[in-house]
């Protein structure tokens, strides 16, 4: 097991390096440059700025310099905000996004699991149909529509919860809810499909033939076998949510990471784009690793080990 983990960590580093390299060269091929928005800068000042950020060098040299800095944990200084490091920018936006994301994932997973089970166990009844409607709405209605509706009705009209801004836990409820619809929809669909399949398996008949009650056979025998596909989608879904959603954050005025990423691309803030992409990439790679470990915990047949068990 230890060897497997080390092996995976090495692969993860290689993956992240590939992400860095591809992003770096793609980004430098974006039209425009960080200084294009500035009007009429005297050429000598422009040159000084370019030199300050190392942009006067040829791109391959810049790439090597960037990699070198990265080794020491330095993501560079932001072009956009004078004197701020990209690391500090990320750390400023990430906590809010992380909190929203985790709340959305936890609530969405639990509720999605519940709905999925109901739909599978009551297949073909109105309850099954109701969960299908919820799932279709959750997948097809964009989260910003949900966000706007929640903010307007719950926040403004009924005044139950704050319609925006950031601060207490109450502030985080509505944006988390808006984000969780996608999770609920996705998880409930996966659980329903898989659970229906598992319920038809021979070993469910064996469990029933032992005299176990319906609820025991479902919770003890069926659920665990039905979890694998849901866990698979949960990994990337978590990363997507904890790294922030631009629109939902904008609607609720949450100072998260979503707006930062989009903004940095708009103004060609090279170091910020790179920083956020690496951060995002590292999280995805890490989440895939965790998902793989979870597989092994859920299904012993996937339990990986060096050599034989």
């Amino acid at each position, binding site marked *: 097991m230890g060897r497997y983990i080390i092996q995976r960590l090495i692969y993860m580093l290689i993956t992240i390096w590939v992400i860095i390299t591809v992003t770096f060269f793609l980004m430098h091929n974006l039209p425009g440059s960080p200084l294009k928005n500035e009007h009429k800068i005297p050429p000598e000042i422009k040159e000084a700025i370019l030199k300050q950020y190392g942009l006067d060098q040829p791109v391959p040299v810049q790439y090597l310099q960037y990699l070198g800095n990265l080794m020491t944990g330095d993501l560079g200084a932001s072009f956009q905000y004078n004197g701020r490091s990209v690391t500090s920018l990320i750390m400023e936006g990430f906590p809010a996004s992380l909190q929203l994301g985790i709340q959305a994932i936890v609530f969405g997973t639990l509720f999605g699991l519940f709905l999925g089970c109901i739909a599978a166990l009551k297949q073909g009844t109105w309850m099954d149909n109701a969960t299908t409607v919820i799932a279709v709405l959750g997948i097809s209605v964009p989260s910003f529509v949900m966000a706007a509706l929640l903010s307007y009705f719950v926040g403004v009209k009924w005044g139950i919860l704050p319609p925006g801004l950031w601060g207490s836990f109450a502030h985080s409820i509505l944006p988390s809810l808006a984000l969780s619809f996608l999770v609920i929809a996705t998880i409930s669909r996966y659980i329903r499909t898989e659970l229906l399949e598992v319920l038809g398996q*021979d*070993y469910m*008949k*064996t469990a029933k*033939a*032992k005299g176990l009650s319906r609820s025991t056979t479902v919770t*003890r025998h069926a659920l665990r076998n039905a979890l694998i596909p849901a866990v698979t989608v949960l990994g990337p879904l978590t990363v997507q949510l904890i790294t922030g959603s631009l629109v939902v954050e904008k609607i609720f005025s949450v100072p998260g990471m979503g707006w930062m990423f989009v903004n940095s691309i708009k103004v060609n803030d090279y170091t910020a784009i790179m920083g956020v992409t690496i951060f995002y990439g590292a999280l995805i790679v890490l989440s895939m690793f965790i998902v793989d470990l979870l597989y092994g915990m859920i299904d*012993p*047949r996937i339990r990986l080990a060096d050599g034989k068990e």
Partner: protein
Amino acid sequence: MSEENLLEVRDLHVSFHTYNGEVQSVRGVDFQVKKGETLAIVGESGCGKSVTSQSIMGLIPQPPGKIRSGEILFEGRDLTRFSEKQMEKVRGKEIAMIFQDPMTSLNPTMTVGRQITEGLEKHQRLGKAEARQKAVEMLRLVGIPSPESRMNQYPHHFSGGMRQRAMIAIALACAPKLLIADEPTTALDVTIQAQILNRMNDLKKQLDTSIILITHDLGVVAETADRVAVMYAGKVVETGTVEEIFNRPRHPYTWGLMGSVPRLDLSSRETLRPIPGTPPDLLQPPQGCPFAGRCQYAMKICKTQMPETTEISGFHRTACWLEHPMSPAVTPPNEWVGGGSQ
């Protein structure tokens, strides 16, 4: 119901609702299982033998399945009238079941040990440690080496034969009075088949369990059963002791079954004699004898009226018009019949 009968199935009718209509899988089945005996139910695929056994256990999915009429008397109590809660106390405790495919009948994400102990905890109210001890004992009893360490392994660590042993351990853990084995050896290698059957026979004697063995393998029947019920198209067409069925079969379908078994003692020029045709469509079951369409002795009356069951001797019964005093005398064609051409 006589004292010695553990199970008595009377005039059982089971049907399934499908898009095409109602399929009558079991159409009036009668049989008895005595204490400590093995009854084999034989017949080709789709004859209703599995449906019958699952009806006894209450494992027919309802809907689409439905027990239309009949009684399943287990120790005098009619299981068809039991509620789901009452059935939970019968399943696993008084009647247990082994399924055909050991590769899919065990939960892949649960240790083998746990799959044995959960029944014990439920029915015998044993604590965790006691149940575990009992489970180890069961694994040893079914012949699994080093049962202690095997307890913590998962089904995928077991070979096919070992899984079926584990299934037997699960089924027999609570010492049920009746064991239903639904084609327990069909999915196994021939060499393993004999081991499993011997093990089942030994345990049957040790634990004084009655067995219903469902199979289409006549070799298995000859080796293990005391009595045989031959099913065809949802009906029992002939029943009797193993000697009676193998040596003096009376129903043309049984003759056909015997004729389609490969034999070593026939010369290589002899070919197998399969039964021509296919079983009737149970969406519209025939009025008369269901075998009439494939029977070379079929008479006019066979197509229009179901024959009564005739008692030949003690247990030997058959449902065939050839038994009627007015029907012509027919000699079975096969040389295998006791005292035949050889």
